[in-house]
């Protein structure tokens, strides 16, 4: 390009700028800052030989009447669209009023107008008078309009003109202009959306872990949060420690001198100040060490003043406690100061601790809200782009091919960051998720080295700790380490209230809580992964419009995993087609299923249910493997701890959730082995371990669930002949969907009751809480039927009094207590409208009468039934009267005692009166006493009749 071409381009750009300002002014949309920052500031630096010119408006301490300033060349500018003499006069007056002339010896007023403003002689004289002896202000030289800028540029050296041409080309009026803000926002938004869609980011679920997030705050917004760290340090009560030290006759601790640093305006200022404060804090921390006994030798050298030795003996423990607190308390602040200076913040932790949720939340709720420029990439996303140079991949992902190289992108980002007064933060989440880790690791090292050349840029990385140590650890040594703050294994989540967590998951996945039973919620509460599976299976998120959530009373794991794997294979299939570019005309999930088959077979063949070597997956299935790994909740990559220095460096595959693995292994055994090779199935199933194996038990359990499905009836017939089947049956029969119960199950339960042993009690407890009819035939009615129709008193005692009265049901209560609480709260008030549904519950309450009874026959069930008698006397009388005819008799004294309450109101021909008279003849002891009491309450008239 010739100099004439360059000048022509600059002239055209200034023309466009003038037109834009005019048009935007008319529309009321003119943004002075945008023009200032994007174009004028870099141009003015050259034109006015003010290389350190900065935007004074963005500094915390605002400079009214100055927009741009360069302290070193003592130059200041005011940029305005108003060209009136009054405006310039006001600017001069205020400039001097604030004493700026002591700091800046030249003031230029730049008027954003297409023609030079004209001012009268008296006006100029007035200005001269105002500035006399203070500021050398010449209107002809120091009032510059937009069009005059071109004249000034023309007079510059060739190299300066070419430099301005480059700035103009990339500015808002140039043909190479790239709207950095737009690209950054768009890129990060898209990536966040991907994370939300895949369920890796569940907004609002992250409840912040203060220490990690505080470090990230200092790192990303050093000017603001450095000040907060200073305030925190200022709240450390060193004078108090020193008073104690002085009383004890030992030297105090140096006070932290923080006063001079609170007004930092730029990132560089914050970095310099942080370095000084780190030194001061470190000194103080060192000084207290002698009192904390960390350094025993030094501690023993502490000698108090001779007249204070006795006080020291008394106070040394207090001093030790206080100084230990001081050391502990300053640790976090010291890290915050290091974060203020760091260029790379690296967060490492084990799998599933919430790293992705943390960075997504941080971007959405911190970086964006503070207008901190950022881009969000992941190891996965980067691995999907082919490229030998990571910097090149990064610039393509951010600017979509608009930039020519990483250097170009970095310059734009630096310039943008400089304008915003905040660093640009590049987030790369999940370094370990890159599919070609070795290659990525070496690229990353080179990339960080290049990245560090741009002081405005910072990088926030996350990585699973085990991968970090073995794959990326070598990078963070030497020069890179000096710029890096490594934060490992701090607790991420601090959800105190699991109800809140469940609520947020349910909201996100669209689970209707009204259609989830209490027991199902209790189950998902125990494990966040299970909660996740549950939500994905039943929530309406990602389901067709017509989807209606079923009523989920119980956690049927097999059903949850079946729905989950079907959905995940579909989404992984779509992902696989997209990333591999392969076409799967018949079944896009075929390769994915093959991968799972290979892993399942390997686990069963080796009878080892963890750490399947990556190498067992054939090369042609690698794409499918990565698609499954990307789904995150099916498989994950792991690195085994090396057994020896000579161990071969390898990678393994594991299922993320053991129960889910057992489900898949059971499915493979049933559908992949049993149907084609029954003898192999037998071999696998008979595989015996010296000790019970958790996974073997899990596989048997899921095979049991599968065997109950009608379509697997043949398999069921075979499976139930296994020697361990009864134990498995007793454990699992109550965990299957009642739709899959058979009439045989009723007979098995009755047989168990008849045995009248511990197994019978266990069945009783399970049935007692299955009171809704949908659990038939294994429900409360079956227990009631057995006890009332055929149990003797011994069986009654075992199945009801022992089973339900003594064993705890939840952390607070026995089953008896919990049941009666439920009875009072739900059954008594609603019995009228639900007589049939609640009948077994009323019968159970009667059966529970002897539980916890004292010698006066007062018992919790008795109290509940008295309440019931008061509210529903007729229903109560009928139920109690019926119970007199039940097979056992232990409850009878209690029943007569209750009936005595209503005895006076009974009709004279009520059958219970005749029964009472009869029992009075045949009974003895307590029963006789209570029957007599009942008859005593019958009125003489009733008795005569």
């Amino acid at each position: 390009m010739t100099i004439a071409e360059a000048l022509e381009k600059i002239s055209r750009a200034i023309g466009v700028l003038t037109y834009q300002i005019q048009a935007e002014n008319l529309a009321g949309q003119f943004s002075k800052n945008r023009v200032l920052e994007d174009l004028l500031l870099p141009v003015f630096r050259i034109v006015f030989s003010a290389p350190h010119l900065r935007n004074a408006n963005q500094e915390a301490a605002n400079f009214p009447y100055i927009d741009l300033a360069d302290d070193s060349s003592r130059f200041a500018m005011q940029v305005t669209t108003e060209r009136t003499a009054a405006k310039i006069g006001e600017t001069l007056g205020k400039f001097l009023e604030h004493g700026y002339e002591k700091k800046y010896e030249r003031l230029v007023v730049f008027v954003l107008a297409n023609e030079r403003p004209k001012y009268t002689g008296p006006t100029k004289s007035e200005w001269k008078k105002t500035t006399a002896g203070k500021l050398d202000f010449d209107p002809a030289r120091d009032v510059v309009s937009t069009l005059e800028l071109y004249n000034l540029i023309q007079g510059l050296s060739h190299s300066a003109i070419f430099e301005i041409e480059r700035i103009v080309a990339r500015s808002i009026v140039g043909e190479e202009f790239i709207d950095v803000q737009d690209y950054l926002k768009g890129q990060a938004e898209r990536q966040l959306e991907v994370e939300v869609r895949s369920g890796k980011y569940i907004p609002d679920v992250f409840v912040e872990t203060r220490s990690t997030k505080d470090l990230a705050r200092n790192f990303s917004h050093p000017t603001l949060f450095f000040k907060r760290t200073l305030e925190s340090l200022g709240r450390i009560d060193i004078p108090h420690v020193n008073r104690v030290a002085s009383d004890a006759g030992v030297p105090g601790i140096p006070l932290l001198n923080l006063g001079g640093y609170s007004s930092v305006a730029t990132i560089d200022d914050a970095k310099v100040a942080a370095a000084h404060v780190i030194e001061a804090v470190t000194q103080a921390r060192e000084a207290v060490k002698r009192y904390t006994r960390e350094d025993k030798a030094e501690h023993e050298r502490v000698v108090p003043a001779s007249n204070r030795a006795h006080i020291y003996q008394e106070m040394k423990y207090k001093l030790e406690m206080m100084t230990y607190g001081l050391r502990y308390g300053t640790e976090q602040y010291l890290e915050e100061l290091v974060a203020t200076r760091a260029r790379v913040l690296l967060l490492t932790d084990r799998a599933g601790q919430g790293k992705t949720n943390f960075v997504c939340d941080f971007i959405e709720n911190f970086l964006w809200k503070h207008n901190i420029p950022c881009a969000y990439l992941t190891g996965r996303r980067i691995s999907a782009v082919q490229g030998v140079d990571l910097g090149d991949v990064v610039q393509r992902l951010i600017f979509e091919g608009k930039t020519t190289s990483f250097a170009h992108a970095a310059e734009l980002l630096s310039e943008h960051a400089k304008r915003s007064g905040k660093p640009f933060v590049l987030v790369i989440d999940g370094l370990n998720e890159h599919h070609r880790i070795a290659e990525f690791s070496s690229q990353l090292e080179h990339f960080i080295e290049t990245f560090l050349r741009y002081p405005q840029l910072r990088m926030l990385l996350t990585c699973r700790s085990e991968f970090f140590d073995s794959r990326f650890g070598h990078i963070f040594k030497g020069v890179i380490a000096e710029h890096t703050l490594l934060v490992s294994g701090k607790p991420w989540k601090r959800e105190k209230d699991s109800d809140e967590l469940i609520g947020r998951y349910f909201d996100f996945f669209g689970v209707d809580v009204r259609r989830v039973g209490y027991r199902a919620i209790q189950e998902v509460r125990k494990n966040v992964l299970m909660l996740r599976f549950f939500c994905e299976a039943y929530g309406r998120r990602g389901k067709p419009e017509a989807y209606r959530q079923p009523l989920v009373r119980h956690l049927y794991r097999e059903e949850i995993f079946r729905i989950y794997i079907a959905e995940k294979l579909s989404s992984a299939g779509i992902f696989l087609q997209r990333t591999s570019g392969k076409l799967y005309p018949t079944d896009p999930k075929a390769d994915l299923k093959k991968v799972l088959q290979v892993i399942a077979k390997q686990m069963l063949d080796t009878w080892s249910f963890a750490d399947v070597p990556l190498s067992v997956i054939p090369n042609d299935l690698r794409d499918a493997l990565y698609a499954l790994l990307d789904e995150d909740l099916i498989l994950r990559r792991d690195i085994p701890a090396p057994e020896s220095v000579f161990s071969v460096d390898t990678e393994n595959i594991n299922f993320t959730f053991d129960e889910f693995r057992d489900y898949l292994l059971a499915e493979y055994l049933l559908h992949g082995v049993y149907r084609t090779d029954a003898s192999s199935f037998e071999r696998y199933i008979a595989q015996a371990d010296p000790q019970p194996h958790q996974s073997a038990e899990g596989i048997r359990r899921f095979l049991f669930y599968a065997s109950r499905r009608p379509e697997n009836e043949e398999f069921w017939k075979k499976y139930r002949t296994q020697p361990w089947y009864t134990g498995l049956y007793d454990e699992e029969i109550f965990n299957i969907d009642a739709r899959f119960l058979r009439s045989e199950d009723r007979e098995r339960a009755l047989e168990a009751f008849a045995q009248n042993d511990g197994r019978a009690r266990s069945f009783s407890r399970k049935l007692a809480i299955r009171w809704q009819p949908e659990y038939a035939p294994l429900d409360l009615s079956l227990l009631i039927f057995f006890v009332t129709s055929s149990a003797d008193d011994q069986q009654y005692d075992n199945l009801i009094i022992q089973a339900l009265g003594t064993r705890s049901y939840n952390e607070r209560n026995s089953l008896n207590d919990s049941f009666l609480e439920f009875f009072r709260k739900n059954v008594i008030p609603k019995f009228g409208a639900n007589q049939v549904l609640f009948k077994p519950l009323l019968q159970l309450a009667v059966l529970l009468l002897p539980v916890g009874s004292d010698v006066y026959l007062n018992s919790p069930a008795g109290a509940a039934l008295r309440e019931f008698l008061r509210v529903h006397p007729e229903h109560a009388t009928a139920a109690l009267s019926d119970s007199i005819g039940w097979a056992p008799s232990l409850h009878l004294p209690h029943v007569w005692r209750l009936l005595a309450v209503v005895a006076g109101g009974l009709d004279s021909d009520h059958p219970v009166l005749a029964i009472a008279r009869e029992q009075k003849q045949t009974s003895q002891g307590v029963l006789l006493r209570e029957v007599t009491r009942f008859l005593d309450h019958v009125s003489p008239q009733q008795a005569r009749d």
Partner: protein
Amino acid sequence: MIIPLARESSTMEDRFLICLVSPLDVTTFVQRAKVVPGSYAGRLISDLYEGIFKYSLELKHDYETYFQVEYPTVHEYLQRRFMFPASIQKRVATRYTEFDSIIYFKSFYTFIEGEYGTKFLRKLLEPRLRK
């Protein structure tokens, strides 16, 4: 308003939220404690004053200076950063504008423990007006 919070298990410090509608100077504070300035008790009470007003986190300033951008409501700030129980968040948030300062005070003084400690702090910080 003085709200006692559960004791911090890691440090065994008693914690309080002290919400004051107007500033309080050290002289008044010491007078209310009925101690002689300069005496042992006087020094203890002066230390307590400094512990509350100089060395404790003032939540209004902290929120408005550093966290308002991130957490649009005080409620959210109290919940996310401190995980105070919902009832306490509500009590503080609803009267937020009335307060001149909201101090998160962690006491290591044994004489500020339990119910007695709360009563004592009330006596010093918000004594009932006498007729």
